[in-house]
């Protein structure tokens, strides 16, 4: 529910691309950046618990929280030194914010393109994984229906949940494939459905 504690987190999701780009400039490696992003979402969630809070611009609010997360990160890493937070990155972010309307309109126009990019990314999944995903999300099949349609024996049905789990993660990764800042995250390993 939009009035629930989840509201800020859900509203901030469209800005994940720029948020992550900012955090990547603050962090020392991609794993730390992912960590900072998750912490940003956790704090957005906590902020939503106070139901009297009114936020004018969710984007500016999310960036303020991300900056605080980055400051804490810098402090923890350099106990004796003053924290170093890339100021230029932050001004980028604010600039980004000023032009947010424009960006949003652009995003809406790109929705179709984004779907194609998603399909492209998913098309590279291992065949069976891709087919399961297709049956689940395009055709709305249940697990049993998927097994029947693909003629999978009972023994391998359990594997489906593995594949679907990959599908869940894949979806999350590729749902942002259209945003250049994280395109580098999509890199299918030889191991199958994982992403890094």
């Amino acid at each position, binding site marked *: *529910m939009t009035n629930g504690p989840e509201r800020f987190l859900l509203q901030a999701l469209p800005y994940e691309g720029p948020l992550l780009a900012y955090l990547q400039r603050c962090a020392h490696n991609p794993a730390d950046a992912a960590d900072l992003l998750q912490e940003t979402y956790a704090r957005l969630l906590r902020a939503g618990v106070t139901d009297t809070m009114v936020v004018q611009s969710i984007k500016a609010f999310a960036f303020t929280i991300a900056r605080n997360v980055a400051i804490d990160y810098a402090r923890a890493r350099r106990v004796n030194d003053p924290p170093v937070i890339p100021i230029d990155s932050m001004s980028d972010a604010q600039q980004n914010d000023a032009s947010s309307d424009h960006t949003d309109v652009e995003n809406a126009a790109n929705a179709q393109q984004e779907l194609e990019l998603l399909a492209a990314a998913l*098309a590279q999944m291992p065949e069976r994984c*891709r087919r399961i995903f297709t049956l689940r999300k*395009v055709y709305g099949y249940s697990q049993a229906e998927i097994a029947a349609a693909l003629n999978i024996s009972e023994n391998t049905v359990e594997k489906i949940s593995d594949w*679907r789990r990959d599908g869940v*993660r894949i979806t999350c990764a590729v749902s942002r494939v259209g945003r250049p800042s994280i395109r580098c995250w999509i890199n299918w390993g030889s191991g199958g459905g994982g992403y890094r």
Partner: protein
Amino acid sequence: MKADKVEREAAEWLAACDAGSLSAQQEAALQAWLALSDRHYAAFLRLQACWVEADRFGQLRVPNEPLNVDLLRSHAKPPPHRVSRSLLAIAASVLVATGLLMGIPPLWSGTEHYATGRGGYARIPLSDGSIVALNTDSEVRVHLTERRREVTLVRGEAQFIVAHDTMRPFDVYAGSKIVRAVGTAFVVRRFGGDDVQVLVTSGRVAIVAPDVQLSEVTLSALPESIPTVRAGEVARVRNGGQISVSPLGAAAQHATSWTEGRLWFDRLTLAQAVAEFNRYNRRQFVIDDPSIADIHIGGAFDADDVESFAAALKSFGIKIDETNPDIIKLSKAQL
């Protein structure tokens, strides 16, 4: 804390939820995991939002075409750096020609997202003056622009009281269909897949497939082929896209009683009534005895008042077993 580990665990939980209903034990374990850290809950919410978003792939489906497990491959566009502009333009025009572009609601941008949990209810006033009421366990995305009003019913049931605006049609995306209104009141319910019910309480609506060029559809001059539903009628869209319209009859006056938290059962079978009650409550009724599933019952109950419903059933000679605190088993009383 490692973000990747948390995300992996969140994905596992999401996959478990997606596989069907969780057992009481699993449900408790999930709640415990979510409560362990804000990071857990945040990661879960984020993945869930993406997973739900992936339902948009349903729009790629062409009605009446055979199952194609490699559909995604045919829609995949080669990586951008290898595609010239002209190729992109061709891809776009093909999509327009097949009408796919028209049927795809916008992704995130400018979209407001509302959801209720089990037993929840929300009344959402929109900026155009329309009102959306969300029933239990339901989810909508709302996208209002100067030219269009678009709502996607992701799951569950919602009532729409649409502010009149002939310049800006009000479209509700539900499964494979779009319900179009100009100014009216109606309820849309998704039963999963393409199974959708549209119940009109005032005015009328048109039901179209996403591959119809919507810009050409106005309610004043509808082609014969477009089914419309009028006040006092209910339409059911089954899998495969066939639409049947029937009069609501006496049920009409209670059709929206859920907006007041009431359930009206008018000669429903016990199985139907129980299924309806279970939508709203964590404690679930289970019919343990097939011989009582078809008995007919009627009456009005508060949707969250499990106790009263159980008491009423008991008074009609149905045995209530509450050994398991989460489940109320119903069977025929032994004489």
